[in-house]
């Protein structure tokens, strides 16, 4: 069991609705509504889903950057969800986050040196000035940047370079888990590939675990060992990469995968076009959240919330089709 780094159980994060000028309201945005998964050491778990489905909130709640509303989070064997802030602080640096927007994730008034030294200071407040300088150099080299760049300000870098600095800052405190919240979505494809490679290299060298959040199925598929698909604050399917791509079970996963345009003009295949929009997380449909757009929806989907079922080893799906009733259906379809 000791190879489980992070275990999330029934995580819930709700936000009070802020409408117009007035804050308080009884209604809640259920951004994350009962998410459970585990992450092993050295593993990458991909988290995909459409905008607003709660991916970022999940990542942030795990790090307690947002206080979760409910559920438990166990990290390195300790339950961190109810820890006091003081006790949590030393653990906090064991997990770090890399953000989507390379322009907003660095303090524009701080040099690279300053930003990295600050992080190093957190790791070891006693570190000497020289040691810090050396380590800054080392970190920059590790993420593939010229060590001379240390004295520069963020606006002097391109997006890809900034993303590297962000990664260096996260690495400075020697974490075991990195939550990468869409780290490549804002980058051009050519740069995107560079960063993905860098992340993979670092993982191998440092034995990191990633919670890799993205809406780009291609990237997720490339980097992840296992993938979780989210819809409206819930995980609808979670499986190893191979399982998920060869045998997507949830109708949403299926539609999602077919909707991605393929960079291949010869393989124009039939797409499953979902009708309608994603409902608002402030107003999640009862029953299965996906039933409003699902072509297989039956009566039960409109009333009963499905639970995760183990469809095959390590392959969980949250759909009524895969209750005892639904298994038959799969049989028919795979034939």
């Amino acid at each position: 069991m000791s190879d489980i780094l992070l275990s999330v159980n029934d995580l819930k994060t709700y936000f009070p609705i802020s409408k117009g000028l007035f804050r308080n309201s009884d209604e809640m945005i259920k951004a994350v509504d009962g998410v459970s998964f585990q992450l092993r050491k050295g593993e990458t778990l991909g988290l995909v889903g459409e905008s607003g489905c709660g991916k970022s909130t999940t990542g942030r709640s795990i790090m307690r950057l947002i206080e979760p509303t409910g559920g438990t989070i166990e990290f390195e064997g300790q339950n961190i969800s109810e820890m006091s802030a003081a006790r949590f602080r030393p653990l906090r640096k064991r997990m770090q986050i890399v953000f989507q927007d390379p322009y907003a994730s660095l303090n524009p008034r701080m040099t690279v040196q300053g930003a990295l030294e600050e992080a190093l200071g957190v790791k070891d407040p006693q570190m000497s000035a020289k040691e810090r300088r050396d380590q800054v150099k080392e970190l920059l080299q590790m993420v593939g940047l010229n060590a001379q760049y240390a004295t520069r300000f963020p606006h002097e870098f391109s997006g890809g370079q900034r993303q590297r600095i962000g990664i260096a800052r996260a690495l400075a405190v020697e974490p075991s888990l990195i939550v990468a919240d869409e780290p490549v979505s804002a980058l051009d494809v050519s740069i995107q590939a560079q960063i993905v490679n860098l992340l993979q290299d670092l993982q191998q060298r440092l034995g990191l675990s990633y919670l890799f959040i993205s809406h780009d199925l291609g990237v997720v598929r490339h980097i992840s060992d296992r993938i979780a698909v989210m819809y409206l604050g819930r995980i609808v399917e979670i499986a190893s990469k191979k399982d998920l791509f060869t045998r997507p079970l949830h109708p949403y996963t299926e539609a999602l995968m077919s909707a991605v345009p393929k960079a291949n003009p010869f393989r124009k295949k039939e797409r499953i076009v979902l009708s309608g929009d994603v409902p608002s997380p402030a107003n999640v449909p009862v029953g299965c959240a996906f039933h409003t757009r699902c072509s297989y929806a039956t009566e039960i989907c409109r009333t009963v919330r499905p639970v995760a079922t183990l469809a095959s080893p390590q392959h969980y799906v949250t759909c009524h089709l895969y209750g005892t009733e639904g298994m038959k259906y799969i049989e028919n379809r795979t034939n």
Partner: protein
Amino acid sequence: MLNSNRPESYWGGMGKRLRRNKTAMAGVVILIVFTLGSLLAPVIAPHPVEQMNFNSRLSAPSLTHLLGTDDFGRDIFSRLLHGGRISLLMGLITVVLSTLVGVTLGIIAGYYRRADLFIMQGMDILMSLPALLLAIAVIAVLGPGLTNAMIAVVIAVIPSYVRVVRSAVLSIREKEYIEAVRALGIRDWQILLKHVLPNILSPIIVLSTIQFGVSILAAAALSFLGLGAQPPMPEWGAMVFVGKAFLSQAWWMSIFPGLAIMLVVLGFNLLGDGLRDAFDPKTR
């Protein structure tokens, strides 16, 4: 490629943009002239400020008295020079004080939800009274006088600082880099000091420049109402007030101090506008 020509640093670039901005430079020139004039007042003033000369009462501008004399025969030009010290110093002190208080409160309100409600309610209360009336009420309590006028102005302008700072903090707070340092486990006060404060500096500087003008105007208005500077202090607002009684016989008594106020305030506003443009990342 990036090492070939090093892009300018943040402040350096700002200074350059400011220097290119003609209106801002006009403001700077006005302010330099007035600051020098008042700093050097004892040296360049042609007559001692308080010297009365009943024989040359209310004499029109001439070579001996560039801007004429007042009802005691005092030289208005000399008084204006000395008065500049009062107005500028008063502006400076009120701005420093209100910045200190306003920024502290604004940062706290912006960063801590719970304090926010409390502080903003307080500001709402202050804001719901017209600023000048609030100042007059404060002076009624403390008594007229320059110091009290400054306190009154400070109290009256604090809410605007708090609001500006708070909204700046609120927007900075949502920035990912703040979240990143929170993730590192940096303590709140350090975040406020090292990451929030430097990033809200530009709106504060811009606001302060403009508040400088506002404070000078407000203090002048209070002196005009007889609540600020005390005689024989050559405060400009007070000079306009006194000169007002002599409008038909000695227009120079109120025209020139009024003009001086307007020019200085204009200088600060021009500078403030220029700074705003220079700071604004969108114009970069």
